[in-house]
């Protein structure tokens, strides 16, 4: 059976847990989205922007020196970092902004953690001539200053969120409050495979171009399918984007790398699937970091884009059915991952992606024979250079 089901559930996960005010717009969005899925003109327009504007297809690059170092792994990098704006996020924002236009919405809002989704949203909104406001936690504004300037240059208003932990979770709360208030003219572009139905499936569909291309490219280069797919998971959009096209290729193993922050046995991490429990946040049911009273806990990761106490419901489902495995890598090792790729391949990855890169070390020790891997290089690291310069 194709998932999600009609009411947006992936097994026990997913669904629509939102204030009643938003139910009408979610119904409308679902209707519009379902009709656009079959609309050839829309698909053509979306494909046009992905190719001519964002720069798809992205390369599947064989990382020779990295593979030599890892010995047992043959690593291919899916170069989403080469896309316009520097990360996979643009795939989704171009898709959603086109949906917003079809719905006649004139104002775009978004939440952002690392600022990559905010930049990608501001970019797509500028491209389509729509007003754009981005909610960002005050702590993230500080550690991702470069992206804040980029959003402002693109004509977006960046709104500092000072409630709760002042990070992505709180930015999303504030974006939802704005949406409830301005629902009639405003489209909320959610940046991950999270939120109420149909967002998780819609974002997955817009991002799954990553996996479709990678599958085709790998088959062409190697004449077979890869043994492993590896991607970092915060909300999980780049990972789901890569994984989804391989869902039925049962021999291809999928590994999602969460942020272990200062350690999964401390209180400062973002390893939602590894350490969380099922719950409801921001419109859907998935694994969550929560305390014994069901209060949401504050996540921690050096990578702002992974610093979120929830995860996309489809990842919780993949984990539950055993289709994907979820592991975690901490702050310090992520920096090692960043250095590793920079020095071996001349590519500075985003701190988020660096978690997945570091995990290749672990994987290389585990595999019994020479294995091939596609790693989703979800974003470039320019945005992080300022914040980690003292740690190098």
């Amino acid at each position: 059976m194709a998932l999600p089901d009609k009411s947006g559930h992936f097994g026990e996960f997913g669904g629509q847990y939102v204030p009643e005010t938003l139910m009408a717009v979610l119904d409308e969005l679902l209707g519009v989205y379902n009709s656009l899925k079959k609309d050839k003109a829309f698909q053509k327009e979306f494909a046009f922007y992905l190719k001519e504007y964002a720069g798809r297809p992205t390369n599947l690059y064989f990382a020779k020196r990295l593979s030599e170092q890892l010995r047992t792994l043959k690593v291919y990098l899916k170069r989403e970092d080469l896309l316009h704006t520097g990360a996979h996020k643009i795939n989704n924002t171009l898709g959603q902004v086109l949906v917003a236009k079809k719905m006649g919405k004139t104002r775009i809002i978004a939440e952002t953690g690392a600022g990559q989704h905010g930049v990608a949203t501001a970019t797509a909104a500028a491209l389509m001539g729509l007003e754009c406001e981005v909610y960002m936690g005050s702590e993230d504004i500080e550690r991702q200053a470069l992206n804040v300037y980029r959003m402002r240059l693109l004509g977006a208003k960046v709104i500092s969120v000072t409630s709760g932990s002042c990070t992505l979770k709180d930015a999303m709360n504030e974006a939802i409050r704005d949406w409830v208030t301005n629902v009639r003219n405003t489209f909320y572009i959610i940046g991950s495979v999270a939120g109420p139905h149909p967002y998780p499936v819609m974002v997955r569909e817009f991002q799954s171009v990553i996996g479709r291309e990678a599958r085709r490219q790998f088959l062409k280069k190697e004449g077979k399918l890869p043994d492993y797919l590896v991607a970092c998971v915060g909300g999980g959009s780049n990972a789901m984007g890569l994984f989804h096209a391989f869902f039925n290729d049962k021999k291809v193993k999928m590994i999602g790398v969460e942020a272990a922050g200062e350690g999964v046995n401390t209180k400062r991490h973002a390893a939602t699937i590894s350490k969380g429990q099922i719950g409801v946040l921001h419109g859907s049911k998935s694994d969550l970091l929560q305390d014994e009273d069901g209060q949401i806990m504050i996540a921690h990761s050096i990578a702002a884009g992974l610093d979120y106490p929830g995860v996309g419901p489809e990842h919780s489902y993949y984990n539950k059915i055993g289709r994907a495995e979820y592991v975690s890598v901490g702050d310090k090792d992520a920096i090692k991952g960043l250095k590793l790729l920079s020095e071996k391949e001349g590519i500075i990855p985003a701190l988020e992606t660096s978690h997945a890169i570091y995990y290749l070390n672990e994987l290389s020790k585990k595999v019994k024979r020479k294995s091939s891997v596609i790693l989703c290089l979800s974003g470039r690291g320019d945005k992080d250079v300022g914040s980690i310069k003292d740690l190098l």
Partner: protein
Amino acid sequence: MNRLDKKFEELKQAKKKAFIAFITAGDPSLKVTEELVCSFERSNVDIVELGVPFSDPLADGPTIQAASQRALANGVTLKKILNTVKNIRIKTEMPICLMTYYNPVFHYGEEKFVEDARKCGVDGLIIPDLPHQEAKILIASAKKNGVSTILFLTPTTTKKRMKEVVDVATGFIYYVSLTGVTGERKALPTDVAGHVKAAKKISTKPICIGFGISNAAQVKAMSKIADGVIVGSAIVKEINKNAGRKDIVKKVSSYVAKLRGL
């Protein structure tokens, strides 16, 4: 028939409208919460809506967000609130609804929660992030336990959903006056009466208006077009203003009595 249903029946007989007071449980302390609820009877409050603090109250504006943060900082939990309701029940038959976000309830275990809530004397549940289609388990166990499940109608609710909502709601229907979060507003939308009228056409269940209502004039105006009104942020603000004062209960009660306009 629970206390909530009885109250609406009484009000109907007396041709009166309900005044529902919202307060955040545990702000400034559960002891004050307990005293406030008991004092509200003398302020002519008909029903109390007790807010369960949550870390991510996405339907609430700044006033109730801040109150939730204060209550959580005081160590307030759902279990402790149920215990407070139990203590209140020794002293008063005031109908009490719990307003809580879904995750604490889901984490507690929906069926166990409803049972415990009933045992402690809770009459109704208001869960703003739980639309009815996701609430099947909760509604079924609430029905079994005689606890009301209050559902929302809003200015954006379609006719089709309005029908579904009024069919499954019990206790009363919560009409959200505006598109937005909780909090005081100087003026309320002009289309409230029309929306309430439309709902009245298809349902005989009581309809109460909430969100934005923050002064005696608005209470009076909204009472005319519905079966009751809910005031939250204005009262929560008054509580915070008097936090730490010995006469907080007296101050807040007299403020509420004035809002009530009696």
